[in-house]
């Protein structure tokens, strides 16, 4: 016999090994299975937590910006503001930007000769016309606190909610909160405003705040009431056919 040609040798080898089988030891699958366990699970979890966390962050941030308070109350009390400005010293520096806007605002303001700085006003959505009632309020309001507000708000724009300057707005809230409680609110006389006077203190208030924004009905989807101890309880639920509300509304 001759030496076998390479091609034949290769073919014979290949035939023997095609679909060859060798029985694996029993423990091999266990080893594989152990290393497999973490893989399918870990995938989605981080993403969900990240999403939840980012929603929570957005929520908290939006709560820290009480410009909503500004909006609500200043509709009722711009007169307060206007009279103060009339009384206060002009705060002109650095307010060129707001002066042009202030001019627009000026037109709707009737009282007083000079309205030095309505930048302060320019952060508010609505400027109610000044009435002669201003005199009533003048005596009650200290002027000093007004001074720093216009300065800080010099670059605020009208008709826009101020976002970045949180520390300023907090001052405004405090200021507003203090003075609002002394007046009777014409516009907002229901429990919601009362709750919001005190700010959002707990989950019930938070939910109320959100639901208020979304649900404009008398009887909202769900309604909490917070007592003086900062405890919330549900006082109304309106989902589909289920309508349970507090009677003395």
């Amino acid at each position, binding site marked *: *016999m*001759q*030496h*076998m040609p*390479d091609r034949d*040798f*290769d073919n*014979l*080898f*290949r035939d*023997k*090994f*095609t*679909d*060859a*089988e*060798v*029985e*694996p*030891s029993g423990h*091999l*699958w266990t*080893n*594989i*299975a152990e*290393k*497999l366990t973490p*893989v*399918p699970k870990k995938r989605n979890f981080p993403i969900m937590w990240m999403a939840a966390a980012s929603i929570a962050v957005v929520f908290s941030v939006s709560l820290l910006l009480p410009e909503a308070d500004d909006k609500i109350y200043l509709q009722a009390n711009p007169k307060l503001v206007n009279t103060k400005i009339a009384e206060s010293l002009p705060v002109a520096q650095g307010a060129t930007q707001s002066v042009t806007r202030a001019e627009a605002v000026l037109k709707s303001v009737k009282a007083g000769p000079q309205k030095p700085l309505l930048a302060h006003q320019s952060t508010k959505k609505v400027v109610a016309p000044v009435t002669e009632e201003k005199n009533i309020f003048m005596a009650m309001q200290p002027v000093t606190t007004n001074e720093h507000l216009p300065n800080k708000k010099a670059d605020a724009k009208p008709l826009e909610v101020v976002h970045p300057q949180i520390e300023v707005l907090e001052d405004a809230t405090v200021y507003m909160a203090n003075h609002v409680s002394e007046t009777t609110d014409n516009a907002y006389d229901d429990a919601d405003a009362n709750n919001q006077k005190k700010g959002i203190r707990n989950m019930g208030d938070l939910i109320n705040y959100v639901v208020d924004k979304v649900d404009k009905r008398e009887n909202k989807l769900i309604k909490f009431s917070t007592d003086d101890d900062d405890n919330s309880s549900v006082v109304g639920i309106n989902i589909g056919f289920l309508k349970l509300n507090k009677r003395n509304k």
Partner: protein
Amino acid sequence: MQPLGRYFHLTHTSKQMKATNTYTLIELMEGCKAGNRQMQEMLYRQTASKMLAICMRYAKDRMEAEDVLQVGYIKVFEKVQDFKGEGSFEGWMKRIMVNTAIESYRKNLRTLNVVSIDDNYEQPSVAPDFSRLGMQELMKVIQKLADGYRMVFNMYVIEGYSHKEIAETLGISEGASKSQLSRARAILQQEILKLEGFGYATHAG
């Protein structure tokens, strides 16, 4: 009574078989994509013996072969998501095993310059008789080859890689691939002949 007994036996076995062998490879593959543990195990049970045979060819011993097998299956279950159905799934799995085996070889690389003791590889004048040889014996013979020769022989002869592809994969020249293939063949033939009882008397001179 006896016919009844047989009937029971048959139904029992068919139930068992139904458990593991009913699923086609495609179904098992889809199950693995979904991360179903039972499907993964069934795929393993159905294919592991073939895959281990591949690993045994490439590895220098059973232990290394089993390591390669385990790593290979883990890769299969991880990468199954990317399998788009082009070509056969079994072929896809085999390629993963081969690549894992090559990785294992490269990791434990003894230089390709190591040659086996039987380096006088003159072509034997007697052709080996394959009809009397079983796959197991050939497996033993192939594992006697030096690592580098074994890799080249497997890739070229069984998997069908070209010398160019072998050269790129193993990081050697095409010329080295060709010469190592020749040496591998010669050594294998010698070893087979030894198995078959032919001594060194077959060598010329």
